[in-house]
């Protein structure tokens, strides 16, 4: 037979379903009268089949589901009341299941309400509040995620987004309260200073990698801590520390250097998210359309061949790290120019740099993917706050969920095995990378 329908001739039918269709096909061919081509599968069916294939979207969605299941189990085992109902599980299983379901569903419902929409909210401000929170958390993650993703495409693993963001925060904060500049210009200078601070901190591992071969993973890890200690030291210096305070907090950033709010003064979302979208576009253009981006990707996939082809590998490495650092620095500057605190504290950077690594991986190190991944992570954090205050479920659960999602998407083979997914039609690029020290 020609096997026209089921793909390449050397393949066995992948599923019983296909085998049946092949058999059907054969019987049709046997009939000399039926000359019309075999019936095409319905569009809906094709869609469902594709959905159940191991493509990026499905794997991501199932990873989220798996992570939430594990999170739910964690919630149940850490709740003594609910756990108590399991002691008589065999006698009245309904009790245990009901209590567990109530606990987990309420927590996740609050997660959703805090991140997307609260149906009970009254008034426009209240209705917009979850979205505003989500966007506030998303903005810095886009930058740090892009930082990691850009370096990754250039063959470098930038674990230093945290340190670069820290230097960005420092530079942006200092520019924000030390420079007496007019409104408008002040904001531009502060944001630019953040980028420069981060770029400087990215330059160091870049030049060390290029000149001495020192592994960027080690150096960026170490520089994260150097930056963190530098921030702690700097805050309590004269001229930086808030003169009215004795604890470690700097003077507040001038109003002229703060990012304008998007939805009025009562909601925290600021223009950083617009900048984030623009920068995502710029990075996408840089990667896919510019000469530098081509060189960067070439070096990332094969430095030896790139060198042979006349691309300066050392120059590319330095440039990649400078750009990555600048992006992370921009992300850091959002933390001090955009939020309500608007002052330097030891924890002002939070975890944006480390979360950026997860965001980049979740976004499959593609710029627009990073944007979407950052949106998901931002939503999880915004919703996590509400989950903590309304359901009493610790915010740390969000960290667990984020880590689990990335673990699952990093090992698509595992998700495939759990859900018995078919292999996707086109061979998907491997998420696994082999790269040592």
């Amino acid at each position: 037979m020609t096997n026209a329908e089921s793909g390449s001739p050397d393949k066995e039918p992948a599923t019983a379903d296909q085998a049946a269709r092949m058999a059907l096909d054969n019987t049709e061919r046997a009939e000399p009268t039926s000359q019309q081509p075999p019936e095409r599968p319905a569009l809906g069916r094709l869609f469902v089949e594709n959905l159940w294939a191991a493509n990026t979207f499905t794997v991501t969605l199932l990873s989220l589901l798996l992570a939430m299941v594990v999170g739910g189990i964690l919630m149940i085992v850490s709740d003594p009341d609910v756990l108590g109902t399991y002691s008589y599980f065999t006698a009245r299983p309904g009790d245990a299941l009901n209590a567990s379901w109530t606990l987990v569903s309420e927590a996740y419902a609050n997660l959703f309400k805090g991140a997307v929409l609260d149906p009970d909210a009254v008034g426009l401000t209240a209705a917009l509040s979850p979205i505003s929170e989500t966007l506030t958390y998303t903005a810095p993650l886009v930058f740090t995620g892009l930082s990691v993703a850009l370096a990754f495409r250039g063959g470098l693993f930038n674990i230093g987004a945290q340190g670069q963001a820290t230097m960005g925060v420092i530079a942006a904060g200092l520019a924000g309260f030390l420079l007496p500049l007019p409104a408008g210009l002040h904001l531009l200078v502060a944001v630019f200073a953040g980028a420069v601070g981060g770029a400087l901190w990215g330059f160091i591992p870049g030049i060390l990698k290029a000149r001495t071969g020192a592994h960027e993973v080690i150096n960026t890890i170490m520089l994260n801590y150097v930056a963190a200690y530098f921030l702690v030291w700097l805050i309590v210096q004269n001229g930086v520390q808030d003169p009215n305070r004795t604890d470690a907090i700097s003077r507040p950033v001038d109003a002229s250097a703060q990012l304008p709010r998007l939805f009025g003064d009562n909601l925290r979302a600021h223009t950083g998210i617009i900048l984030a979208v623009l920068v995502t576009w710029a990075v996408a253009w840089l990667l896919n359309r510019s000469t530098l981006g081509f060189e960067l990707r070439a070096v990332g996939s094969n430095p030896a061949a790139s060198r042979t082809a006349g691309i300066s590998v050392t120059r590319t490495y330095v440039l990649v790290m400078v750009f990555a650092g600048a992006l992370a620095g921009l992300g850091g500057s959002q933390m001090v120019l955009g939020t309500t605190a608007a002052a330097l504290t030891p924890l002002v950077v939070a975890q944006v740099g480390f979360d950026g690594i997860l965001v980049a991986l979740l976004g499959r190190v593609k710029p627009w993917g990073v944007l979407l991944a950052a949106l998901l992570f931002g939503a999880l954090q915004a919703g996590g706050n509400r989950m903590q205050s309304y359901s009493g479920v610790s915010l740390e659960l969000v960290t667990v969920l984020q880590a689990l999602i990335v673990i699952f998407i990093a090992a698509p083979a595992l998700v495939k095995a759990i859900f018995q997914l078919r292999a996707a039609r086109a061979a998907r690029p491997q998420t696994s990378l082999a790269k040592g020290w």
Partner: protein
Amino acid sequence: MSTMAVDDVAVAPVNAGFWTRNRKAGLVLTALGLLAVSLFTTLAASEPARFTLSEDASGAALKINGTVGAALFGAVALAAGVAILAGLPTRWFTLVLGAGLVGFVVSFLCWQVSTAPTGQNFMPLVNIVRGTFILALPLIFGALAGVLCERSGVVNVAIEGQLLMGAFSGALFGSLSGNLWVGLVAAAIGGTFISLLLAVFAIRYLVDQVVMGIVLNLLAVGITGFLYERLMQPDPAKYNSAPRFSDWEIPLLSEIPVLGPALFAGNIFLYLGLLLVLVIHIGLFRTRWGLRTRSVGEHPTAADTLGVRVLRLRYRNVLLAGAVAGIGGASYTLALFSFTKNMIGGKGFIALAALIFGRWSPTGALLAALFFGFADQLATYLSAINSTIPSQFLAMLPYLATILAVAGLVGRVRAPAADGKPYIKG
């Protein structure tokens, strides 16, 4: 994302010409010596700087005038630097470099101690040495966990997570059972849990090991933080009051001045840590297991050809590493403090630094961990005597030292050749 195998960039040969690596180190040491002779000496007060052998100002002490001490030991550093610069035979290099660095540190201490406020211008050596060992302990365990993993070719960035999970499960199960040994075993299992995830995903699913390590650290922070807030915070008496190991003094040996109280009057973790360094050193370089581990870390294909089961050995070593790190985490919760959120606070990464600075060897890791522990203890001491040196800069020292080491300024640092590369048979 494509599979990347980035080899080291073509590096300009460092040993070329007059400026060999040794001479560069000599140059740095000369600069440090000059700094000590000029700056430290002028800043030092002409007061006696006392280094007492006890825990307080009383008792026997080594005494030297601050200015004289700073100048004298600065001169030692300078002389060592110049000697290396002048072209010292390589076999003397390490010894002279070490002497020079010690001279620099002592010169610095003479300055600091002599300028301390009256009544505080002494340095209790017992406390310093003891504190150094206590602060170095989690680093030793963590770095040994790194040695076990990375010598067999699996990058272990998850040390932080393994320590944290060990500390947490040690505290939790120690409290629940009220038994120290249950806590200790639970800590080892906790660390192994994280390294099991690392092993399965790195070896079976070929996920990038650095990525996996970073994610596992976050997972450990999340899980322990979550359970801490849900269980330990509401009911610390039940969930977070583990019994603690007391100190075991070894008779006679603990009487040795300075070193005795530090080395022979510690808790079980101190003895276990030092014993593990010895055992892993001997194991790695003198046994069949060690030879196989090293060969799998350097050239798994060759090892496989000779009949070594690469993946099984890697699984075993990674799991073992998790147990070691887990016990290291318990050295907090079963001896010093009760569990708090994220209590490891970056020690796992200093342990990673110690591993790299110690060039992937157990004894090197021990020395590096002690050095970092000393820097940590010195920061505490200096802030106690109101020093002008900010403690944050001393806290940066381990990280900066590692960067310098990796950049090739202090000796040659090379990871096992197959470190971080998954092995696919065939």
